């Protein structure tokens, strides 16, 4: 896993924009209508979700090798 996804769940309204624009289908929506990380290992840290999140609820950072 070379990326780190940070969620600010109180901000998430479950619109599904991040889920739809993720090229690797990493994200999904929970039963409560909030974003959940389904396949964290597949994340390529492209940042498409962060870019278009209207609620500033998801952030992706590339993990820096130690």
């Amino acid at each position, binding site marked *: 896993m070379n990326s780190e996804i*940070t969620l600010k769940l*109180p*901000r998430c*309204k*479950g*619109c*599904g*924009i991040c889920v*739809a*624009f993720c090229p690797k289908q990493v994200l999904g929506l929970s039963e409560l209508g909030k974003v959940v990380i389904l396949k964290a290992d597949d994340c390529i840290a492209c940042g498409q979700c962060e*870019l*278009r*999140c*209207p*609620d*500033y*609820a998801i*952030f992706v*950072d590339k993990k820096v090798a130690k």
Partner: protein
Amino acid sequence: MERSFEQYFRQNRLPHLWCPGCGNGIATKAIVQAIEKKGLDRDKTIIVSGIGCSSRASGYMDFDTLHTAHGRAIPFATGIKLANPELNVVVITGDGDCTAIGGNHFIHGCRRNVDLTVVLFNNNIYGMTGGQASPMTPTGKKATTAPYGAVDPTFDACKLAEAAGATYVARSTAYHVQHLTDMIANGFDNKGFSFIEAMVQCPTAYGRKNKMSDPVELMKWMRDNAVMKAAWDKLPEDKKVGDKFPIGLLYQDTEVDYATAYEHVIEVAGGAGK
């Protein structure tokens, strides 16, 4: 890692009140990122907004902000700019606020070439009041006041701004976030009236009426129909059909801005009595 743009938001006001999937949040972030990119001094940047969904943005942004009367954001901003020409004045307005209620203020702001940066959040409808058709609802699209589709031809706010005398006219969408940020940032550089139309999706009022209640569908519509200006100019006329529209820097010119012209008048009249 905490993002640096977060400092420009009033944290105790978030999450914002906009509907799930509303594009206003994306456009607001684009504005603060453009401000950050250009390194504008926070104490010398004023956000002025009118009334409507879009205009709620000023309440979330941690600057000196002014939430004004419906359609009257540009006159208030003109006053601020003339009182203190050092300030960077950003106006946030909506399609109804800017082209209907404030239509006259908008064209005269353009005509005077006041040094403002006006960002119009175009969601094609009056969202907050219940989905009435606005002057920018596309012809044939439904709204609560146009149940059989809007009859009125649509305003092209960019052409209107250009014709009225604005010196920087650009358009972008909530799908093209980085492009939108760049268009706004370049607007700050222009000394004169900068107008940026940001197409944003409204899944609740516009989308539901027009069988596009999923914000993702509306964003894909933007992705598929927006054509960059350079490509648009090369496009043959018969391909410019349907929903296709140009985005990018549509018009630029250099003219004397209003504050400078006014400064000259003050000088001729014998100074401001300092």
